[in-house]
Protein backbone atom coordinates (compact mmCIF):
# COMPACT_ATOMS: atom_id res chain seq x y z
CA UNK A 1 0.00 0.00 0.00
CA UNK A 2 2.94 2.33 0.33
CA UNK A 3 2.78 3.48 -3.30
CA UNK A 4 -0.92 4.27 -2.98
CA UNK A 5 -0.40 6.25 0.19
CA UNK A 6 0.56 9.37 -1.70
CA UNK A 7 -3.07 9.51 -2.85
CA UNK A 8 -4.77 8.03 0.16
CA UNK A 9 -5.85 11.46 1.35
CA UNK A 10 -7.98 11.83 -1.78
CA UNK A 11 -11.41 10.28 -1.34
CA UNK A 12 -12.15 10.73 -5.05
CA UNK A 13 -9.70 8.02 -6.03
CA UNK A 14 -11.29 4.58 -6.24
CA UNK A 15 -9.08 1.87 -4.73
CA UNK A 16 -8.68 -0.06 -8.00
CA UNK A 17 -6.96 2.86 -9.74
CA UNK A 18 -3.29 3.71 -9.39
CA UNK A 19 -3.76 7.48 -9.72
CA UNK A 20 -6.37 10.15 -10.42
CA UNK A 21 -4.91 10.47 -13.91
CA UNK A 22 -5.41 6.79 -14.62
CA UNK A 23 -8.93 6.98 -13.22
CA UNK A 24 -9.72 10.05 -15.38
CA UNK A 25 -8.37 8.38 -18.54
CA UNK A 26 -10.34 5.19 -17.91
CA UNK A 27 -13.56 7.11 -17.29
CA UNK A 28 -13.12 9.25 -20.38
CA UNK A 29 -12.34 6.22 -22.55
CA UNK A 30 -15.57 4.64 -21.30
CA UNK A 31 -17.59 7.77 -22.09
CA UNK A 32 -16.21 7.88 -25.64
CA UNK A 33 -17.04 4.21 -26.21
CA UNK A 34 -20.57 4.95 -25.01
CA UNK A 35 -20.77 7.92 -27.39
CA UNK A 36 -19.75 5.60 -30.25
CA UNK A 37 -22.77 3.37 -29.51
CA UNK A 38 -24.97 6.47 -29.41
CA UNK A 39 -23.72 7.58 -32.83
CA UNK A 40 -24.57 4.14 -34.22
CA UNK A 41 -28.04 4.15 -32.63
CA UNK A 42 -28.97 7.53 -34.11
CA UNK A 43 -27.11 6.55 -37.29
CA UNK A 44 -29.57 3.72 -37.94
CA UNK A 45 -32.45 6.21 -37.93
CA UNK A 46 -30.55 8.60 -40.21
CA UNK A 47 -29.85 5.78 -42.70
CA UNK A 48 -33.52 4.76 -42.65
CA UNK A 49 -34.63 8.34 -43.17
CA UNK A 50 -32.31 8.90 -46.14
CA UNK A 51 -33.34 5.64 -47.84
CA UNK A 52 -37.09 6.24 -47.50
CA UNK A 53 -36.60 9.89 -48.46
CA UNK A 54 -35.07 8.62 -51.70
CA UNK A 55 -38.01 6.27 -52.28
CA UNK A 56 -40.77 8.81 -51.53
CA UNK A 57 -39.30 12.30 -52.10
CA UNK A 58 -42.66 14.06 -52.65
CA UNK A 59 -44.17 12.56 -49.51
CA UNK A 60 -41.19 13.69 -47.40
CA UNK A 61 -41.41 17.17 -48.94
CA UNK A 62 -45.07 17.35 -47.89
CA UNK A 63 -44.16 16.25 -44.36
CA UNK A 64 -41.39 18.83 -44.04
CA UNK A 65 -43.89 21.59 -44.93
CA UNK A 66 -45.61 20.92 -41.60
CA UNK A 67 -42.44 21.87 -39.69
CA UNK A 68 -41.60 25.45 -38.78
CA UNK A 69 -37.93 26.20 -39.50
CA UNK A 70 -38.06 29.20 -37.13
CA UNK A 71 -38.66 26.95 -34.15
CA UNK A 72 -36.00 24.49 -35.35
CA UNK A 73 -33.46 27.28 -35.85
CA UNK A 74 -34.23 28.76 -32.41
CA UNK A 75 -33.70 25.35 -30.83
CA UNK A 76 -30.40 25.01 -32.72
CA UNK A 77 -29.19 28.32 -31.27
CA UNK A 78 -30.37 27.31 -27.77
CA UNK A 79 -28.40 24.06 -27.94
CA UNK A 80 -25.29 25.76 -29.34
CA UNK A 81 -25.38 28.25 -26.48
CA UNK A 82 -25.81 25.39 -24.00
CA UNK A 83 -22.77 23.62 -25.47
CA UNK A 84 -20.74 26.78 -24.94
CA UNK A 85 -21.86 27.12 -21.29
CA UNK A 86 -21.23 23.39 -20.74
CA UNK A 87 -17.68 23.64 -22.10
CA UNK A 88 -17.17 26.74 -19.94
CA UNK A 89 -18.50 24.86 -16.91
CA UNK A 90 -15.86 22.16 -17.40
CA UNK A 91 -13.18 24.81 -17.79
CA UNK A 92 -14.27 26.55 -14.56
CA UNK A 93 -14.13 23.20 -12.75
CA UNK A 94 -10.63 22.66 -14.13
CA UNK A 95 -9.54 26.05 -12.86
CA UNK A 96 -11.17 25.86 -9.39
CA UNK A 97 -13.78 28.57 -10.06
CA UNK A 98 -16.65 27.02 -8.15
CA UNK A 99 -19.23 29.82 -8.42
CA UNK A 100 -18.73 30.32 -12.15
CA UNK A 101 -18.84 26.56 -12.67
CA UNK A 102 -22.23 26.26 -10.94
CA UNK A 103 -23.58 29.30 -12.85
CA UNK A 104 -22.47 27.85 -16.19
CA UNK A 105 -24.07 24.49 -15.39
CA UNK A 106 -27.34 26.13 -14.29
CA UNK A 107 -27.49 28.13 -17.55
CA UNK A 108 -26.86 24.90 -19.48
CA UNK A 109 -29.74 23.27 -17.61
CA UNK A 110 -32.04 26.23 -18.36
CA UNK A 111 -31.13 26.00 -22.07
CA UNK A 112 -32.25 22.37 -21.91
CA UNK A 113 -35.59 23.55 -20.42
CA UNK A 114 -35.98 26.13 -23.21
CA UNK A 115 -35.28 23.46 -25.85
CA UNK A 116 -37.92 21.14 -24.38
CA UNK A 117 -40.46 23.96 -24.08
CA UNK A 118 -40.13 24.78 -27.79
CA UNK A 119 -40.30 21.05 -28.57
CA UNK A 120 -43.50 20.85 -26.50
CA UNK A 121 -45.14 23.60 -28.60
CA UNK A 122 -44.10 21.82 -31.80
CA UNK A 123 -45.36 18.45 -30.61
CA UNK A 124 -48.71 19.75 -29.33
CA UNK A 125 -49.29 21.46 -32.70
CA UNK A 126 -48.58 18.19 -34.55
CA UNK A 127 -50.79 16.21 -32.19
CA UNK A 128 -53.59 18.75 -32.64
CA UNK A 129 -53.37 18.39 -36.44
CA UNK A 130 -53.35 14.59 -36.20
CA UNK A 131 -49.84 14.45 -37.71
CA UNK A 132 -48.80 11.37 -35.78
CA UNK A 133 -46.78 8.21 -36.49
CA UNK A 134 -48.19 5.09 -38.12
CA UNK A 135 -51.71 4.09 -37.21
CA UNK A 136 -52.22 7.15 -34.98
CA UNK A 137 -52.10 9.43 -38.02
CA UNK A 138 -55.48 11.16 -38.44
CA UNK A 139 -54.90 14.19 -40.67
CA UNK A 140 -57.48 14.25 -43.49
CA UNK A 141 -55.75 16.85 -45.65
CA UNK A 142 -52.73 14.67 -46.41
CA UNK A 143 -51.92 14.56 -50.13
CA UNK A 144 -49.81 11.42 -49.93
CA UNK A 145 -51.25 8.18 -48.62
CA UNK A 146 -48.15 7.24 -46.63
CA UNK A 147 -47.49 10.61 -44.97
CA UNK A 148 -47.73 8.83 -41.61
CA UNK A 149 -44.27 7.38 -42.33
CA UNK A 150 -42.74 10.85 -42.34
CA UNK A 151 -44.11 11.49 -38.88
CA UNK A 152 -42.94 8.08 -37.68
CA UNK A 153 -39.41 9.21 -38.53
CA UNK A 154 -40.01 12.70 -37.16
CA UNK A 155 -41.26 11.53 -33.77
CA UNK A 156 -38.74 8.66 -33.43
CA UNK A 157 -35.76 10.87 -34.23
CA UNK A 158 -36.77 14.00 -32.31
CA UNK A 159 -38.26 11.88 -29.50
CA UNK A 160 -35.09 9.86 -29.04
CA UNK A 161 -33.13 13.10 -29.16
CA UNK A 162 -35.45 14.80 -26.64
CA UNK A 163 -35.07 11.83 -24.27
CA UNK A 164 -31.32 12.41 -24.49
CA UNK A 165 -31.85 16.07 -23.65
CA UNK A 166 -33.85 15.04 -20.56
CA UNK A 167 -31.18 12.51 -19.53
CA UNK A 168 -28.50 15.14 -20.10
CA UNK A 169 -30.40 17.68 -17.96
CA UNK A 170 -30.67 15.15 -15.08
CA UNK A 171 -26.90 14.56 -15.31
CA UNK A 172 -26.20 18.31 -15.45
CA UNK A 173 -28.39 18.87 -12.37
CA UNK A 174 -26.40 16.12 -10.60
CA UNK A 175 -22.98 17.64 -11.38
CA UNK A 176 -24.28 21.16 -10.62
CA UNK A 177 -25.30 20.04 -7.13
CA UNK A 178 -21.95 18.33 -6.61
CA UNK A 179 -20.12 21.40 -7.91
CA UNK A 180 -22.03 23.65 -5.49
CA UNK A 181 -20.85 21.40 -2.66
CA UNK A 182 -17.30 22.05 -3.80
CA UNK A 183 -16.65 18.46 -4.80
CA UNK A 184 -14.76 19.34 -7.99
CA UNK A 185 -11.37 20.96 -8.48
CA UNK A 186 -8.44 20.95 -10.88
CA UNK A 187 -7.42 17.53 -9.52
CA UNK A 188 -10.84 15.92 -9.86
CA UNK A 189 -13.56 16.98 -12.29
CA UNK A 190 -14.18 13.67 -14.08
CA UNK A 191 -18.03 13.70 -13.74
CA UNK A 192 -18.28 17.23 -15.22
CA UNK A 193 -16.04 16.21 -18.13
CA UNK A 194 -18.06 13.05 -18.86
CA UNK A 195 -21.45 14.79 -18.63
CA UNK A 196 -20.05 17.57 -20.83
CA UNK A 197 -19.05 15.10 -23.55
CA UNK A 198 -22.53 13.56 -23.46
CA UNK A 199 -24.19 16.98 -23.71
CA UNK A 200 -22.02 17.97 -26.68
CA UNK A 201 -23.06 14.77 -28.45
CA UNK A 202 -26.72 15.71 -27.94
CA UNK A 203 -25.88 19.06 -29.57
CA UNK A 204 -23.93 17.29 -32.34
CA UNK A 205 -26.91 15.10 -33.27
CA UNK A 206 -29.21 18.12 -33.39
CA UNK A 207 -26.74 19.87 -35.71
CA UNK A 208 -27.59 17.14 -38.26
CA UNK A 209 -31.26 16.68 -37.33
CA UNK A 210 -32.08 20.36 -37.90
CA UNK A 211 -31.16 20.57 -41.61
CA UNK A 212 -32.37 17.01 -42.24
CA UNK A 213 -35.90 17.60 -40.93
CA UNK A 214 -36.50 21.35 -41.23
CA UNK A 215 -34.43 22.61 -44.15
CA UNK A 216 -33.86 19.86 -46.70
CA UNK A 217 -37.29 18.27 -46.36
Amino acid at each position, binding site marked *: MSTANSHSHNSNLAHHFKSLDQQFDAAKLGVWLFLATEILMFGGLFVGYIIFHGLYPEMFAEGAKHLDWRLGATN*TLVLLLSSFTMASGVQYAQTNQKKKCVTALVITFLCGCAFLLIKYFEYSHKIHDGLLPGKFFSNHEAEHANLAMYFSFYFCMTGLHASHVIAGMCLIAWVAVRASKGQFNSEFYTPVEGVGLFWHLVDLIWI*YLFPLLYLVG
Partner: protein
Amino acid sequence: MAHGDQNQAHHGHHITPIATYAKILGLLVILTILTVAVARPVSGFDAGILNAGIAFLIASVKAAMVLAIFMGLKYDKKIHLAIFISAVFFLIVMFTFSVLDIYTRIHVESTL
Protein backbone atom coordinates in the same frame (compact mmCIF):
# COMPACT_ATOMS: atom_id res chain seq x y z
CA MET B 1 0.47 13.47 -22.06
CA ALA B 2 3.47 15.71 -21.61
CA HIS B 3 3.21 17.75 -24.78
CA GLY B 4 4.80 20.73 -23.11
CA ASP B 5 1.69 22.74 -23.96
CA GLN B 6 1.53 26.00 -22.07
CA ASN B 7 -2.21 25.66 -21.41
CA GLN B 8 -2.08 22.68 -19.12
CA ALA B 9 -3.13 22.01 -15.58
CA HIS B 10 -0.40 20.68 -13.38
CA HIS B 11 -1.46 17.10 -14.01
CA GLY B 12 -1.41 17.45 -17.76
CA HIS B 13 -4.97 18.15 -18.94
CA HIS B 14 -5.44 20.74 -21.62
CA ILE B 15 -7.31 23.88 -20.58
CA THR B 16 -9.02 25.78 -23.38
CA PRO B 17 -9.52 29.52 -22.75
CA ILE B 18 -13.17 30.68 -22.48
CA ALA B 19 -12.41 33.19 -25.26
CA THR B 20 -11.74 30.27 -27.64
CA TYR B 21 -15.08 28.69 -26.72
CA ALA B 22 -16.80 32.05 -27.30
CA LYS B 23 -15.18 32.39 -30.74
CA ILE B 24 -16.36 28.89 -31.67
CA LEU B 25 -19.88 29.73 -30.45
CA GLY B 26 -19.84 32.85 -32.65
CA LEU B 27 -18.76 30.82 -35.70
CA LEU B 28 -21.42 28.17 -34.99
CA VAL B 29 -24.13 30.85 -34.81
CA ILE B 30 -22.92 32.42 -38.08
CA LEU B 31 -22.96 29.02 -39.80
CA THR B 32 -26.48 28.34 -38.45
CA ILE B 33 -27.69 31.64 -39.93
CA LEU B 34 -25.94 30.75 -43.20
CA THR B 35 -27.51 27.29 -43.43
CA VAL B 36 -30.97 28.81 -42.80
CA ALA B 37 -30.33 31.55 -45.39
CA VAL B 38 -29.50 29.08 -48.17
CA ALA B 39 -32.39 26.72 -47.41
CA ARG B 40 -35.11 26.39 -50.03
CA PRO B 41 -38.13 26.74 -47.70
CA VAL B 42 -36.66 29.94 -46.22
CA SER B 43 -35.13 31.94 -49.07
CA GLY B 44 -36.25 29.99 -52.13
CA PHE B 45 -32.59 29.41 -53.03
CA ASP B 46 -32.80 26.43 -55.39
CA ALA B 47 -29.67 24.51 -56.30
CA GLY B 48 -31.51 21.27 -56.94
CA ILE B 49 -29.97 18.27 -55.24
CA LEU B 50 -27.09 20.52 -54.11
CA ASN B 51 -29.35 22.14 -51.50
CA ALA B 52 -29.07 19.03 -49.36
CA GLY B 53 -25.33 18.78 -50.03
CA ILE B 54 -24.73 22.37 -48.93
CA ALA B 55 -26.86 21.90 -45.78
CA PHE B 56 -24.95 18.77 -44.71
CA LEU B 57 -21.58 20.30 -45.62
CA ILE B 58 -22.32 23.24 -43.29
CA ALA B 59 -23.59 20.81 -40.63
CA SER B 60 -20.34 18.83 -40.90
CA VAL B 61 -18.21 21.96 -40.48
CA LYS B 62 -20.25 22.79 -37.36
CA ALA B 63 -19.91 19.22 -36.09
CA ALA B 64 -16.15 19.31 -36.64
CA MET B 65 -15.86 22.48 -34.54
CA VAL B 66 -17.92 21.01 -31.71
CA LEU B 67 -15.84 17.81 -31.78
CA ALA B 68 -12.46 19.53 -32.03
CA ILE B 69 -12.91 22.35 -29.52
CA PHE B 70 -15.95 21.76 -27.27
CA MET B 71 -15.28 18.02 -26.99
CA GLY B 72 -11.54 18.62 -27.03
CA LEU B 73 -10.56 16.02 -29.64
CA LYS B 74 -7.99 18.47 -31.02
CA TYR B 75 -5.92 18.30 -27.83
CA ASP B 76 -7.05 14.90 -26.62
CA LYS B 77 -5.52 11.45 -26.67
CA LYS B 78 -5.74 10.07 -30.18
CA ILE B 79 -7.57 6.96 -28.92
CA HIS B 80 -10.73 9.06 -28.43
CA LEU B 81 -10.53 10.32 -32.02
CA ALA B 82 -10.00 6.71 -33.15
CA ILE B 83 -13.15 5.58 -31.29
CA PHE B 84 -15.17 8.38 -32.87
CA ILE B 85 -13.85 7.68 -36.38
CA SER B 86 -14.53 3.94 -36.01
CA ALA B 87 -18.17 4.71 -35.12
CA VAL B 88 -18.50 6.94 -38.19
CA PHE B 89 -16.77 4.29 -40.33
CA PHE B 90 -19.25 1.58 -39.33
CA LEU B 91 -22.10 4.03 -39.87
CA ILE B 92 -20.84 4.56 -43.44
CA VAL B 93 -20.65 0.77 -43.90
CA MET B 94 -24.27 0.41 -42.71
CA PHE B 95 -25.37 3.25 -45.00
CA THR B 96 -23.47 2.00 -48.07
CA PHE B 97 -24.69 -1.58 -47.90
CA SER B 98 -28.30 -0.53 -47.18
CA VAL B 99 -28.32 1.89 -50.12
CA LEU B 100 -26.67 -0.68 -52.43
CA ASP B 101 -29.33 -3.19 -51.47
CA ILE B 102 -32.41 -0.96 -51.76
CA TYR B 103 -31.46 0.86 -54.95
CA THR B 104 -30.24 -2.15 -56.93
CA ARG B 105 -33.42 -4.15 -56.44
CA ILE B 106 -35.19 -4.94 -59.69
CA HIS B 107 -38.78 -3.87 -59.64
CA VAL B 108 -40.89 -6.69 -61.00
CA GLU B 109 -43.56 -5.15 -63.20
CA SER B 110 -44.75 -8.29 -64.95
CA THR B 111 -45.10 -11.93 -64.06
CA LEU B 112 -43.17 -13.01 -67.19
